[in-house]
Structures are given as structure tokens and as C-alpha cells.
């Protein structure tokens, strides 16, 4: 019985993975034929990017601040206080900035995409789109996908900046670290590649959030419960996918950066 259940879950998971891959392929081919609806695209950039700023900035600032405090506690024991901001900077640029930004945006935007598109499906608005000779992927998925791809790196850059500034504030004003060496070491140990890796990751996470959110909305079960379930799954699946992808992207991108 347990084996049968596990088998069914694996089959469902593989079917969903296949569905998301097919949606990505459809969106990719639509992208090249897409007549840019600037109004839709700008609205999505506003919705995904501009409206996510408060939550991303707060997350970035407090992550940088707590990371500085924790790093100082450890580094102070070996007299490496002035390396504190370098750790904050590298971690924010290549790992924490993109991952935490993506997780926060997945919670805010991925859920909204699944709920909005799911409600459209339940109320036959998706059928109405199709009856009006409009492909739902062209109208609903492509603008969201482009907007998420554009917005995530920008939000991540903001998160990195406020994270470093938060870490600097804590290091200098609360922990009493000498600011010149703090800043000098940060610049010395943070490389261009760290920033580029973080932004590439953010670009990819944008696609993951938009694809999973849209897929869950387009395939949600009918009824209010179906929309609720799709919304929850969009957030959970996006978050897990981002964390798993982050591990492999770190390996691959560091390898590429090392070879260059």
C-alpha cells in the first residue's frame, strides 16, 4: 500500500515536471513570435518588481545585519574583526541575496500568479481567452516570465546593496569595528564574479517562480479549494526548486568563473 502510494506520488511529480517543461518550451517558442504588449509587460514588471521592493529590502537589510553580528562573534575570537563585512558581502552577492530575494518573491508573486490564473481558470476566463483566439501562454505566461526574469536581478541587486549597508551599519555603529579596514577588506575579497554569479542565479530564479506559478494556476483543480491548493503548491514547489537549483548553480557557476 505504501509502495503504491509512493509510486503514485513519483508518477505525479514526474508528470508535473514534464508539464512545467512543456510550458517552458511553449513559452520559449511564443517569445520569438510574441508581439510585445508593452502595457501588459510594464504592468507585470510593476507588479513583480516595484511592489516586491519593501519585502525584499527589509529581508536584505536584516539578513546583512544579522550576518555581520554572527560573523563578528566568530571572527572576533581570532582577531579578524575587519573581515566581517567581506564575509557579509560575498555571502550576500553570491548566495543570500539571490536566494532570499527569490524566496520572498516566490511567496509574494508566485502565490499571486497561481491564485490569479487559477481563478481565471475556475471562472472560465481562460476558456474565454482561448475562444477569443488568444493563446493563454502568449497572454498570461510570457509577460509574467519576461517581467520575472527582468525584475529578479534588479531586486537582488537592491537586496545585496542594503544587506551590505546593513552589515556596515551594525559593524561600525554597534560592534565598533574600524570602518576603513572593514570597507577595504570587503572590496579586496569581493570579486566581480561574485556579483555576476548572484545576478545570473536571480535571472534563473525569476524564470522558476514565473513558470511554476503560472503552471499551477493553469492546471489548478476547479473550485475554491483547487485555487487554494494551487497557490500553496506554487510557493512550496518554487521554494524547493530554488534551493535545489541554488546548490547545482553554485557548483556550475563557480566552476565556470574559476575557469575564466
Amino acid at each position: 500500500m505504501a509502495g503504491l502510494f509512493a509510486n503514485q506520488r513519483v508518477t505525479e511529480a514526474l508528470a508535473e515536471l514534464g508539464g512545467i517543461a512543456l510550458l517552458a518550451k511553449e513559452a520559449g517558442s511564443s517569445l520569438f513570435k510574441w508581439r510585445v504588449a508593452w502595457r501588459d509587460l510594464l504592468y507585470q514588471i510593476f507588479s513583480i518588481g516595484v511592489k516586491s521592493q519593501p519585502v525584499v529590502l527589509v529581508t536584505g537589510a536584516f539578513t546583512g545585519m544579522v550576518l555581520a553580528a554572527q560573523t563578528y562573534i566568530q571572527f572576533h575570537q581570532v582577531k579578524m574583526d575587519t573581515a566581517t563585512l567581506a564575509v557579509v558581502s560575498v555571502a550576500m552577492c553570491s548566495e543570500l541575496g539571490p536566494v532570499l530575494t527569490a524566496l520572498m518573491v516566490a511567496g509574494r508573486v508566485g502565490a499571486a500568479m497561481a491564485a490569479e490564473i487559477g481563478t481565471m481558470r475556475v471562472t472560465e476566463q481562460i476558456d474565454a481567452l482561448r475562444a477569443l483566439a488568444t493563446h493563454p501562454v502568449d497572454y498570461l505566461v510570457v509577460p509574467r516570465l519576461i517581467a520575472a526574469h527582468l525584475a529578479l536581478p534588479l531586486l537582488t541587486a537592491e537586496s545585496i546593496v542594503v544587506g551590505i549597508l546593513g552589515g556596515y551599519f551594525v559593524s561600525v555603529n554597534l560592534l565598533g569595528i574600524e570602518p576603513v579596514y572593514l570597507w577595504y577588506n570587503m572590496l579586496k575579497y569581493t570579486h566581480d564574479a561574485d556579483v555576476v554569479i548572484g545576478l545570473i542565479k536571480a535571472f534563473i530564479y525569476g524564470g522558476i517562480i514565473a513558470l511554476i506559478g503560472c503552471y499551477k494556476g493553469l492546471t489548478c483543480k476547479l473550485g475554491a479549494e483547487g485555487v487554494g491548493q494551487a497557490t500553496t503548491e506554487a510557493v512550496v514547489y518554487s521554494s524547493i526548486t530554488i534551493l535545489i537549483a541554488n546548490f547545482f548553480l553554485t557548483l556550475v557557476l563557480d566552476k565556470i568563473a574559476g575557469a575564466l
Partner: protein
Amino acid sequence: MIEARNLRKGFDTQPVLDGVSFRIENGESVAIIGRSGCGKSVLLKLLIGLLPADAGEALIDGENIVPMNERQLLRVRRKFGMVFQGSALFDSMTVAENVAFGLRRHEHLTEAEIARRVAGALDMVDLPGTENKQSAELSGGMRKRVGLARAIIYEPQIVLYDEPTTGLDPIASDSIDQLMARVRDQLKVTTMVVTHDMRTARRIGQRVLMLHDKRIYASGPADEFFASPDPVVRQFIDGVADPKEHLP
């Protein structure tokens, strides 16, 4: 011309339509009736490709749409306008944006021309001056009218109505019936209306098809159909749960 040849459709293991065949000529107006859950709306969605048929052929102007993919279907769907049971208005848009949706997507028109066409479509459905209302502000009858305006604005050859009067009071239903008749007569479109409202079927259908037991059970010109002595047809037309019961 619309033709169904031996169409079959089921959900999971439950067949809903099993060998449905009929033909509707250009300009004809046909009512499809049948009990709730008999597959009327499913049939309509098969004909426009919103649901895939399991077997059989659905021919639109001689072109079988059953094997087509979603992108190929988009071209065929431009021949159709469809009015949905729940209106299916885009709830984030105003009335004007809803009505203009098809025009903006498929035709290169100036904003002035779009506004003129939207005003014309809203006039036709007796809703002049409602362009800036949000769809959430509209009553059920108004939503149906806006749905109809959206369906006819790009002058389709075929208009499909899915339960257009369901959920409306008798007066609103009557005005929607009049509207459908006006659209049929003025635009000379092929009309298919799915309904279990006998008054709508009588007023709009020049011919009536009755779905029963997963297939077309009876069909014929409206006058002959409504005079049919067939017990199944009579039971449905008279709306009697027990056929032995005599209505006063």
C-alpha cells in the same frame, strides 16, 4: 458550416457523448436542448476546440478541428464568438477593455476606431455609455450583454451561446432572447444556443436538437419538434418529472 461526425467524449471512464452527429448550415439558428449534465456545454466546447474530442470529427467549414493543436485552433476560433454561461468577463478590466479585447489582439486599429467599434457593439446590446464600468459592478443580465458584445465585435461567422439565460429573471431572460434574435437577424450569423429554457429554444432555434442518452435523440424544425408526440421529448418540453403525471 458546422458538422459533427460520430463525436465521442468522456471524462475519466465516464462517457458523456457517444457518437454525436449533426450538420448545421451557414446562417442557420439551432437550439440544443437536453437535461442538465447531458453534455450540451461539452458539445459546444468540442466544436470550438476548448475540449479535445476522444474520437470523431468536428468540421468547421469542412476543416476537421479534432486533430489540431492549440495554435492551429486559434485560426479557426476567429470564426467564432462565444457567450459563456457565467459570462466569463475579465474581471480586472472595464467593460470597454473586455469588449475591445479581441480587436486589440487581432486587428491593427487606432484607439479612435476601437472606441467607435466598442460603442457600436455596446449600443447593439442596449448598454450604451457603460464603457468605463468595472465588470464587477454589473448585474447578471448586463454581464451577459457585455459577453455578447465581446463575442460579436469582430463580426464572427458563428456565435455560440452556452446557457445564455441561466440564472436570470424571466424579464432579463426575455430581453436576452430578443437580443440573440436581433444579433442573428442583423449580422446573419450561424447561431448555436445550448439551453434548457424552452422559451429560449422556441424563440432562437429554427431547428432543435435534443441530446439524450449521450447522443442526438431527436431533431427537427422547431414547430415540428415542439409538437412531437415522442414521450422523452414531451417529458422534457413539458418539464414533467413523472411522465404519467398529467399537467392541468
